[in-house]
């Protein structure tokens, strides 16, 4: 429910137009939202009594304001730890789990492709961090978001290393690549 609570958190700071919410959410979290998502979420929030919409600008934009119910919900959200099982299903875990059972899929190639992709993302986040630091940006929000992405991606790479080790230990022959050397193990 991160979009719902994200929008509520922004409205808890100050009332805003819908389009403003979208821009602010993207700028602060680095995570894109489509217009449809914003407006369906806002209408649900309005239905649930978490926000009220007032007036309309010349261009027909509605102005949203948080209610006491909305404030209570956002406080609850901020103070409740995020449980892993509440997050969206991890497509990668599902993909690998299914690959284990498919004889003609090269698991090591899948793992390596994913690892390379994750490393590339990590390289990008690291440069963004360095750049933010070099510019003396004291945009703590931005740095925290980048750190979160860095650590999540690192965890993914470690997990991929672990998967590969398990795979090598299980000595499952890789159909397209040559088999690993005896007793090879992932560093860690």
């Amino acid at each position, binding site marked *: 429910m991160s979009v719902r609570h994200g929008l509520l958190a922004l409205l808890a700071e100050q009332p805003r137009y819908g389009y403003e919410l979208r821009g602010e959410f993207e700028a602060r979290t*680095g995570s894109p939202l489509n217009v449809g998502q914003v407006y369906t979420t806002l209408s649900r929030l309005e239905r649930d009594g978490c926000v009220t919409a007032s007036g309309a600008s010349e261009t027909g934009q509605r102005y949203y304001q948080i209610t006491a119910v909305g404030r209570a919900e956002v406080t609850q959200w901020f103070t409740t730890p995020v449980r892993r099982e509440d997050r969206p299903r991890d497509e990668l875990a599902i993909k690998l789990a299914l690959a284990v059972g498919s004889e003609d899929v090269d698991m090591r190639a899948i793992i*390596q*492709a994913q*690892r*390379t*992709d*994750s*490393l*590339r*993302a*990590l*390289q*990008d*986040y*690291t*440069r*963004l961090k*360095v*750049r933010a630091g070099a510019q003396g940006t004291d945009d703590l929000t931005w740095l925290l978001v980048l750190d979160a992405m*860095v*650590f999540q*991606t*690192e965890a993914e*790479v*470690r997990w991929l*290393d672990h998967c*590969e*080790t398990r795979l*090598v230990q299980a000595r499952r022959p890789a159909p397209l690549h*040559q088999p*690993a*050397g005896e*007793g*090879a*193990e*992932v*560093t*860690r």
Partner: protein
Amino acid sequence: MSVLVLDSVVRTHGAGEGKVNALQGISLSVAPGELVAVMGPSGSGKSTLLHLAGGLDQPTSGRVLVEGTDLGGLSGKELARVRRRSVGYVFQDFNLVPALTAAENVSLPLELDGTSARKARKQALESLADVGIPELADRFPDDMSGGPQQRVAIARALVGERRLVLADEPTGALDSTTGEAVMALLRARCDAGAAGVLVTHDARHAAWADRVVFLRDGLVTDESVYRAPEEALRT
């Protein structure tokens, strides 16, 4: 011109039954200003690659060039000189001489190479300042914690004219923030014109590199090249 070139490098240990193909044909070039990270399972050939690049070991076949010089064509004496003048090596366990101060550790390779003691000390102090610890020049390694010790080791690896820095798990013995600081330092030295090769198992540290090369069983299996940061968040 590339500072380091590995051209179809093969390294085989032993013969017959016990034969180990540590590297099975690796080609890699590292340009000035470039930091390359090498990752891979243990036994995949990472340290062998670094030893060859630093002239500490010779390939079974293929060529290793440092600043255009083919290391294979050098006498032992010439090779030792290239190692002192062109190559800086950073070890996981720092490898500092405990009986020498930080400045003496850094100036040692210069003095071995015939630089006068005064000039060597001056360059050592500059190098220690570059890595952010000018005040530790006259301290002994045992009086420092791991972070500063590794900084001294990096200062030693980069003192003088050396353009190639090779680092084998340089952050392995450090906590995560100190490790990050060491990476920032390596990055800065490469941005200032050095060429670097870093062996690490830590993805967060490898991510400081321009290129990440993945080794498996002595072969490059994949490579991740840095893109412009503007593209990073569009995925």
